[in-house]
């Protein structure tokens, strides 16, 4: 019985992440439209777009290889698995011990690896532009993430997300290192999700794109999967920030339905707040020059390193 409940809870979380992710994108778009005096598309729109794409045929470039065709499934699966390993409304779910924070980050790294390869498969210049920029950003974003993981793990004494969340919920105190790690994680999250000021998700200019440039050739169901994966990635980062730094309302896996319902409510609220801040930030900033991004990410890396050193040396800050 308990096993069954666990399984259901885990499955529910996976489906929840999948269902919520496009709505999240829709919510950001709606908020941004409102900030610009527009009515904006309905929140459900990204789901409609995905369903439309699934119904369309795929046009493959003549020299597309098997890698190009399997990459979208791999990217989607890796991102989905990573996203469903982050506690959303409850901790300690069934499979959460299968991978810790480091593994989640590395899974996203794998997804990026395949996306960058897929971008180069057709042999158009835009794919190359996207892949090379992604490789440059990734080479700084990932070490920064690892530093953040170090900081958080030292503080909590574990790399298991559920345990970290539980520790953070139980030890609400202001620590300089954790604050620095939060800022660093925000920087990484913006860069990794290709949001303004690093990349513009709504751009129509081939030459400035990063993520869009890699997927310019994709169509139909492949594009739908990649869009879904990038929505899941955004959800993952917001969930990660919420669960590590603001674990309020998170239910334990054995806490029963009521606690889980509260956890769910708190989770949706946290997502909404995160999205609101994102929309505000994006509207009020212009995109950076491509070679400013390493400075931006470098700041994240340095903050992360500083936070780690701080924890290492003092153990109390």
């Amino acid at each position, binding site marked *: 019985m308990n096993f069954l409940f666990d399984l259901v809870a885990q499955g529910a979380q996976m489906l929840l992440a999948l269902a919520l992710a496009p709505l999240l994108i829709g919510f950001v778009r709606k908020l941004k439209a409102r900030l610009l005096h527009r009515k904006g598309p309905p929140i459900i729109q990204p789901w409609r777009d995905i369903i439309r794409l699934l119904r369309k045929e795929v046009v493959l470039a003549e020299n597309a290889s098997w890698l190009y065709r399997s990459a979208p499934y791999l990217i989607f699966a890796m991102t989905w698995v990573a996203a469903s390993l982050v506690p959303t409304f409850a901790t300690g779910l069934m499979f959460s011990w299968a991978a810790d924070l480091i593994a989640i980050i590395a899974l996203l790294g794998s997804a990026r690896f395949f996306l960058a390869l897929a971008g180069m498969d057709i042999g158009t*210049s835009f794919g190359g532009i996207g892949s090379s920029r992604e490789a440059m950003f990734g080479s700084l974003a990932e070490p920064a993430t690892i530093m953040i993981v170090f900081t958080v793990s030292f503080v909590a004494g574990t790399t298991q997300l559920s345990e970290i969340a539980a520790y953070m919920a139980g030890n609400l105190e202001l620590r300089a290192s954790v604050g620095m790690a939060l800022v660093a994680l925000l920087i990484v999250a913006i860069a990794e999700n290709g949001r303004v000021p690093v990349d513009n998700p*709504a751009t129509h200019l081939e030459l*400035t794109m990063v993520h869009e440039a890699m997927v310019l050739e994709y169509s139909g169901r492949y594009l739908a999967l990649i869009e879904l994966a990038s929505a899941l990635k955004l959800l993952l980062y917001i969930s990660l920030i919420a669960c590590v730094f603001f674990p309020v309302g998170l239910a334990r896996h054995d806490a029963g339905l009521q606690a889980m319902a509260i956890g769910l409510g708190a989770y949706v609220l946290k997502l909404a707040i995160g999205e609101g801040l994102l929309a505000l930030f994006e509207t009020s900033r*212009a995109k*950076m*020059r*491509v*070679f400013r991004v390493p400075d931006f990410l470098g700041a994240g890396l340095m903050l992360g390193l500083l936070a780690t050193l701080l924890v290492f040396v003092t153990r109390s800050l």
Partner: protein
Amino acid sequence: MNFASKQTATQSSPPSCLPWPREIVDKASWLALAESLAKGERELLSLWGETSCVHMAVLEPREPRLRIVTFECPEDSFPSVGRLHPPALRLERAIHDLYGLKPEGTPDHRAWLDHGRWGVRQPCGARHEINTVCDPYTFLTTEGEPLHLIPVGPVHAGIIEPGHFRFSANGETVVRLEERLGFVHKGVDRLMGGASIERAAQIAARVSGDSTVAYSLAFAQAVEAAFDVAVPPRATYLRALMAELERLANHFGDIGAICNDAAFALMHAQRGLVRERILREAASCFGHRLMMDRIAPGGTVVNLRQDNAAALYALVDWIELMTPRLIALFGDTTSLQDRTVGTGVISEALVKQYACGGYIGRASGRAFDARKAIGYAPYPQFAFEIGASKEGDVDARVWVRFDEIKASLKIVRQILDEAPGGPVIGAWALPEDWTREGAALVEGFRGDVFVWLRIRADGVVQRCHLRDPSWFQWPLLEAAIKDNIVADFPLCNKSFNCSYSGHDL
């Protein structure tokens, strides 16, 4: 149906042009003029062909400002100006494509407007050749490190006109940018030859949709010059009003588009509102959002009602309220400034060499404005300042636009205050004696639009040459990318906002 060629031979009048006379020169004077262009003593305004002669218009440093010379080409060739003065190169290639006249000694023999798809060679020349093969286009070369090509266009990712850009790059470093245009060549030169004045005016209005008022105005002024037609004073005021509204709408649109390329959506949205309100007001005053076909030779086809004038006052008030806020939004957003300052720099020397007009010229220190330099009616009546800068970067081009917005608002106010009453179109008749020629130089929002035309006594246009300011702006875009990375190109391009349609004709 080559009307123009037949008529040139039996022309019954001496070649003269109003208001600037056209003179026929020999090879030596033609070359002397080309050399003086290369030395920077004069500026090239345009270079265009006919079945058996080429014409060149230059800006003189003294009065009269304009000089038009003609070189007869009995052997279907003329001494190349581009060999000495590079700004003429593309114009010469276009002449060769359309009229088959060869520029002798030109370094660039490649076709320009002719992509080999028309089914005919030299469509406006004395002999058309049926053409079924298209030669491959050879792009300019690069050397050194392993470079890759980025071919962009003609179908761009945004909602813009078609053109092809080819970057040779090493990663993000651009080593060379080459443009290939001509995709929207619609054969305007031949459509104009043999058209009635009304039809020619319609075609002129559709040369470049964003400058439709400027083109209509230039065409009308050229016709009026040729036939010595007096325009009622109220009509000149209304024409200026339309021209300034067009300038305002386009500058607001441009600034928004530049900011949008830097992903600053807030500015884009605000600009969109201002632009939309201007266009709506234009529609209610003149019956068309872009004010297309509202200017006819002799005056304007619509009058401004009193209630419209009141609405325009309100619009100007509102824009004057909004502009400082938008300027603050642009100037105070550091992330935006970081993108625009120092990006896409054009030197003053280059701008002067190319006689580049409009905001591009003004942002790099060439303060030429046909409204002041030529002083066509009613502008001498108005007091306004032309924006100027020496920086030559994207930022400077935005600020010059802001200055022009302020100047235009001031002019619109003066027009509304001072516009005299009376008719808006004067009665005029064709002289029915001989063929006439006329020319006009008008300041559009993008720069100076030059029109030269020859009309038969029965009102049939023989040859009409329309020169867009973009002819001398496009080449500079190739230079603007120097020391910038690939990702900054859209920003440079938008700050130029050259016309494809007006250039390709």
